[in-house]
């Protein structure tokens, strides 16, 4: 494999030479870091590797997941592997979705100054401020839709001048919406009753004790349901 050109990056202010074309995470490991914190799924789904960086010659901070963002010449970076943001405990079954539960549990959402810094900090490109505004209105459906891709890395809350715990607010909203406004389909309930009544027990018993040749025949004879 051809070796990419080496570039200089700054990890917490200290310079290292690494090959171009690496993610921040791979570049840090190349430089000699062995992660304990700051690395998780390594695929952009877990939020363990929140990273703040500044490109050469830029004055602005930028935000990314170390496992997804590429390094470039002159980048200055540091990881933020933990966000000390408290969450409210609750019993889902006791909540009344018709009230503004979000405002009760997280009154600080009323302090939102609409600066949009949370949105700018989000590595998932979520309209964070918009869902906080929806939360303020008690619109849990909109919070669910807007926040759905949240990986709970905590960068929004780290940046918020009003100390809002955005990702905790969104988690509560999604669970409340799913529970209260998105009913369980009837056929699922019917199926559970059938299982409990033992409707499939004989057939399953037959299958679990069936000889191999007969099983193979049954498998080969399956009708594949057409895709709709």
């Amino acid at each position, binding site marked *: 494999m051809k070796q990419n050109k080496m570039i200089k990056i700054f990890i917490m202010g200290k310079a290292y030479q690494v090959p171009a074309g690496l993610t921040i995470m791979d570049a840090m490991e190349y430089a000699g870091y062995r*992660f304990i914190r700051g690395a998780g*799924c390594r695929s952009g789904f877990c939020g363990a590797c929140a990273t703040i960086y500044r490109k050469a010659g830029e004055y602005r901070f930028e935000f990314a997941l170390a496992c997804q963002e590429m390094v470039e010449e002159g980048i200055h970076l540091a990881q933020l592997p933990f966000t000390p943001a408290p969450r409210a405990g609750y019993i889902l079954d006791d909540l009344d979705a018709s009230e503004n539960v979000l405002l009760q549990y997280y009154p600080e959402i009323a302090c939102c100054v609409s600066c949009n810094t949370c949105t700018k900090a989000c590595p998932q490109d979520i309209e964070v401020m918009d869902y906080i505004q929806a939360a303020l209105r008690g619109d849990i459906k909109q919070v669910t839709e807007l926040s759905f891709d949240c990986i709970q890395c905590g960068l929004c809350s780290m940046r918020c001048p009003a100390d809002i715990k955005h990702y905790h607010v969104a988690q509560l909203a999604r669970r409340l919406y799913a529970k209260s406004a998105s009913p369980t389909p009837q056929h699922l309930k019917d199926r559970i009753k059938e299982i409990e009544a033992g409707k499939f027990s004989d057939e399953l018993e037959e299958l679990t004790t069936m000889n191999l040749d007969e099983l193979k025949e049954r*498998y080969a004879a399956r009708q594949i349901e057409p895709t709709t």
Partner: protein
Amino acid sequence: MTQAKLQAELAGGYPAYMRESIEKVKATRTQLLKSGPPAAMNAEARDKILDKFHPDYKPDKKRALAIGPSAGAMMPHEVADVLEAHPLIDPASIDLSKVDIEVDVLIIGGGGAASVAALFAREQGIETDKILIATKLRHGDCNSIMAQGGIQAADRPTDSPAIHYLDVLGGGHYTNKPALVRALVNDGPMIINWHENLGVTYDKVNGDYLEAHGGGTSRMRMHSAKDYTGMELMRVLRDEVRNLEIPVLEFAPAVELLLDKDGHAAGAVLFNLETNEYMVVRANATILATGGFGRLHIQGFPTTNHYGATADGLVLAYRAGARLIDMDSVQYHPTGVAYPAAILGQLATEKLRNQGAMPVNAHGEAFVYPLEPRDVEAAAIIRECYERNNGITTPSEIRGVWLDTPMIEEIHGKGTIKERLAAMWMMWNRHGIDITVDPALVFPTLHYQNGGVEIGAEAQTDVPGLFAGGEAGGGIHGKNRLMGNSLLDYNVFGRRAGISAARWAKKHTVKALSLKHVTNYEKMLKKAGLKTDRKTPLILPDYRNQAVLAHSLDIM
């Protein structure tokens, strides 16, 4: 070269020579959509292609395990290596007379199975502060959170647990343990209902689930939450564990299990990764929910797995006397990212195919039914690249085939990818590739440990008082797991492990703690004449570059 200059030489994220192949893919797309994909293989064709092309079927890549209760079992060298290894800790250095934490149920691991087990142990009446989740990284750093495509459950009127059973068994080449498959398919609908009650958001249209096929399914029973199914489940389960204030100890992996003088599981020795202290945890019942082995990079494959997937649980359970099952079987997900190199081996969900994307070769030809069971699909992609030479070679010299993602928008309408496959769109878009207009390059990637610590239907292992759930447990999937059955597995067997452990803990009190099984394991190594400096559990992989390691000193 700067990022900007690199990007400038690419068009839509791809270099010119790859774009030439993409033009061929675009040229055949309409016709392929009209004619449909190639037909599915019959049993003989499946066997033939697996035997010739699937990495599991290469005899020189595995060996018989030399020692322990599963001695003689075949498994990849990388797995045998971690089992035929010295304990990381010297039992003599651990003071077992001082117990740091006492609980009824200790759960080792912090992913899906661990969370489900904790919730059900509590439901069985174990007091919250008598449960402990101890995990190597953070609560939720696991493979469960990365699962994208969905979870199977036979809930539609045209489906049944018996049909699900047949799909699972055929997909696993009839090697699965029947009682485990029965439990899996039987509990499926109940698990989905439990999720509904916890406030999990599943994809619905007009109040009904949006259910799809997976590779090897005969009914559409894949429930999803966009392509964030695993994340949605994990964040809700974690939130509920937090609501109930079940204690979680993070960055504290187990380094050995403890047994008592009767040979019952009795807790574990934990190691605080940040302070280097060990902790003795005494528990009346212990649950192994430690996930799989992706980070062993079997046969040099990249992996979809999370950072901590180093088979620690297998090692610990094996030293304690538990048998392993199906360890010769590794799941290579057919479609890992082959380009760009920065995200090599990351997951391109099977949902891309269940929504209509076909694998096509460099010439734009379809060469396989898109929803074969995973082992067959992976073998077909390997054949296309290495026997038929119809792959595309990347600048990093990785071969792959196209997954023609724009077909999804052709079939279901514009906007479908961003709506149903938001994570996939974002992953490639970060590297300048728009999968709504261009195909994605893929090749099989190491994805899942099909086997594990052998369990029974109540999640019990060979060691009394030790239970296992999720990827750590084995026997459910036989020699090949189907899409959507791992999320179901961790829920079904995580639940059963939690319930079984709670019941066991109510009846049994642990006696004097012992690490004698570890000392005995050392003796077995010596007796078998195995000379090695390997020490396990590995805890974490090491990706530092060789130049750094060559000058590394362990003096702090």
